[in-house]
């Protein structure tokens, strides 16, 4: 029997620890046998194996992931150590960036306790954009963004539009702080772009660092504040994310609300907005009629009227058009004509 030191202090979960021991003692083994001999549910064994695989503790047999083999304890420990050192270096790099912008991170915030990687680099613009799209898809409630950039290039703007629409469709609340020059840019740059109904924008003369925060759990900062092309750090270390959230909120308090002139677009009547919003939720004409206490025919009329006004021939086309404008959104609160998604895409973007 090979002696295996406790893996818990390396951040390995108890189940993964157990499964690793079983594999080491029993030799290469099938998932079904492991779950029988450890009396653990199959899904738990599976996720333990996934965890071990991710951190170099076990590998499936080529071509058959029902049979697994443990890495030698020495190799596994070396991999864990290497992983932790990498994480520590990443944390230190993040600390240096934030220190450099006047945001102190205390020593005790740097503990690299977890295996899942609380800090990781996103190298280059492509990877960064990809990850931001994923993050927005996963965000449930809110995104915060702050950017010290004096202006955004056309390329960033163009790239930002789909993300912003995506976020708007998902009904995410967005708060953005930018420097005044961004808002002073020619208004025609915003025409045709989305107005986010749940967006709030503010301005402040100077901002320390570019940061995006999703659901107050994940933060993105540039790898190099002097060169956004290089990519970004993705940070999930709760303590550092908290620091960044408080930094954001502090500036938010001090920043001045910005009201931008809305870009012109055909407005919907209140009735149309009601109908279209319910339809966007997937309700049928009949259900909508019942809900609004009007006849089914009134729904047809209203839709026909809208299609006539937008010069389209079917509801699919109407959806396409409204989706692109997002004018259907129910929460018509703001009048902003700015793309707050811009701040996200300009990391790694050629400006």
């Amino acid at each position, binding site marked *: 029997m090979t002696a295996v030191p406790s893996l818990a202090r390396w951040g390995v979960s108890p189940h993964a620890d157990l499964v690793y021991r079983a594999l080491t003692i029993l030799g290469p083994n099938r998932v079904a046998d492991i779950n029988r001999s450890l009396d653990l549910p199959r899904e738990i064994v599976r996720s333990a194996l996934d965890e071990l695989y991710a951190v170099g503790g076990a590998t499936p047999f080529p071509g058959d992931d029902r049979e697994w083999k443990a890495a030698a304890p020495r190799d596994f420990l070396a991999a864990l150590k290497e992983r932790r050192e990498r994480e520590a270096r990443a944390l230190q790099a993040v600390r240096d960036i934030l220190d450099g912008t006047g945001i102190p991170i205390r020593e005790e915030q740097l503990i690299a306790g977890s295996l899942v990687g609380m800090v990781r680099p996103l190298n280059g*613009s*492509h990877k960064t*954009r*990809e990850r*931001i*799209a994923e993050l927005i898809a996963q965000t449930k409630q809110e995104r915060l963004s702050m950017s010290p950039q004096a202006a955004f290039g056309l390329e960033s703007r*163009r*790239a*930002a*539009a*789909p*993300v912003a*629409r*995506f976020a*708007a*469709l998902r009904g995410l609340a967005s708060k953005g702080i930018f420097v005044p020059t961004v808002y002073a840019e020619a208004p025609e740059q915003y025409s045709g772009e989305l107005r986010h109904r749940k967006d709030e924008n503010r301005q402040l003369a100077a901002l320390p660092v570019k940061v995006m925060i999703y659901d107050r759990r994940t933060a993105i900062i540039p790898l190099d504040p002097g060169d956004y092309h290089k990519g970004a750090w993705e940070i999930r270390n709760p303590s550092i994310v908290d620091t960044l959230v408080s930094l954001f909120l502090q500036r938010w308090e001090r920043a001045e609300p910005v009201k931008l002139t809305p870009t012109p677009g055909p407005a919907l009547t209140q009735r149309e907005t009601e109908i*279209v919003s319910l*339809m*966007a939720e*997937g309700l*049928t004409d009949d259900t909508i009629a019942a809900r609004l206490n009007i006849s089914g025919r009134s729904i047809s009329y209203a839709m026909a009227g809208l299609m006539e006004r937008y010069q*389209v*021939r*079917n*509801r*699919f*086309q*109407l*959806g*396409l*058009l*409204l*989706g*692109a*404008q*997002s004018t*259907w959104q129910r929460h018509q609160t703001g009048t902003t004509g700015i793309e707050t998604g811009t701040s*996200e*895409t300009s990391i790694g973007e050629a400006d």
Partner: protein
Amino acid sequence: MELTPREKEIISLLADGHTDEAVAARMGISRRSIAYAISGLMQRHDITNRFQLGLLLGAQIDELSNEEGEAPL
């Protein structure tokens, strides 16, 4: 949004304002195949009507029209 080549063709014809019949005729397939393809697409995205499908696609129109393989972000 991932679309099969056939879905893409149907969608772009519908987006031009054609009826199901016209799309079917143009593609040389049955009307039923059109309805089938669209309902499969809607099911995959957990939506129930074509208006929603339009909204969803409309929000990604840049992505759809950008065939050069450039990142959508």
